[in-house]
């Protein structure tokens, strides 16, 4: 669950490194965002010389949470960190690569493009974007 003020890693190469969640758009006082939810976040740490600067507001989709998911088949999944992928208003990913495993739940309409985008291999690890079925 990602609450307001929660820092999460940015799991793509859009240029932001860490973001802090502000809101969940579309709900007035929604407290918790989970995997697959779109959030509004402010960039807290960014790769130097790249478009998103610190304190720029972006939208993102949550790709991984430590709290994880509970699947219908009873399997509970937990990730190693909280991570989000930066997207624009239409839902297209801002970066070109996604890092790390991603849960299938984030294939919601605004994330499908990100998730289906074929990434390059990161540092020799074969599947840096893994669909968990």
């Amino acid at each position, binding site marked *: 669950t990602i609450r307001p003020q929660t820092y999460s890693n940015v799991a793509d190469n859009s240029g932001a490194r860490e973001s802090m969640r502000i809101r969940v758009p579309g709900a007035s006082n929604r407290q918790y965002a989970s995997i697959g939810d779109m959030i509004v976040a402010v960039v807290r740490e960014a790769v130097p010389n790249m478009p998103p600067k610190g304190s720029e507001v972006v939208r993102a989709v949550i790709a*991984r949470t430590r709290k994880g998911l509970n699947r219908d*088949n*009873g*399997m*509970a*999944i*937990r*990730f*190693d*960190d909280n991570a989000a992928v930066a997207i624009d208003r239409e839902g297209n990913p801002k970066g070109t690569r996604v890092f*790390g*495993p991603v849960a299938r739940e984030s294939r919601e309409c605004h994330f499908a493009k990100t998730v289906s985008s074929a990434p390059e291999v990161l540092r020799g*690890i074969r*599947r*840096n974007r*893994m669909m*968990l079925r």
Partner: protein
Amino acid sequence: MRLEKCWFCSSTIYPGHGMMYVRNDAKIFRFCRSKCHKNFKMKRNPRKVKWTKIYRKLHGKELPQDTTFELERKRNRPERYDRNVVEDTVKAMKKISETREEREAQTLANRMRGKKTQQRREDLAELQQGIHLVKAPTALLEEPSLTLPKEKMKVKVSVEQESKAMES
């Protein structure tokens, strides 16, 4: 539906049980219960933790390598459904698990062989050394013919054991 193995203790994880932890390098760890998960978080090595299957196999407590384990090996290629194959597999599963149980029982018997005689020997020694805890020394002196007290059960057992120990 697939039955997974717990990463820590190697027990089967049935649907609805356990938890899956995904590390950022996309490696998946499945745990059958929070006990295993907590041990994992403590960074314990299952090879050193006594109650895990890995430890037991490594230290010869259980059948380590056997052809009966081959059937359960994970295959990632999905098989085309063939009714005869399914039927044969079901029959084979039963037979193989029976065989495996027999072999495991045999392994256990081999491991425990000689335990009974050793136990008897130890018990006899303990009895002889510690008889003063049971019977006062003066009482033993009253009956110089017997080295051990007159209590029925004890005398019987000890005489039997002594004779058996002497035989073996």
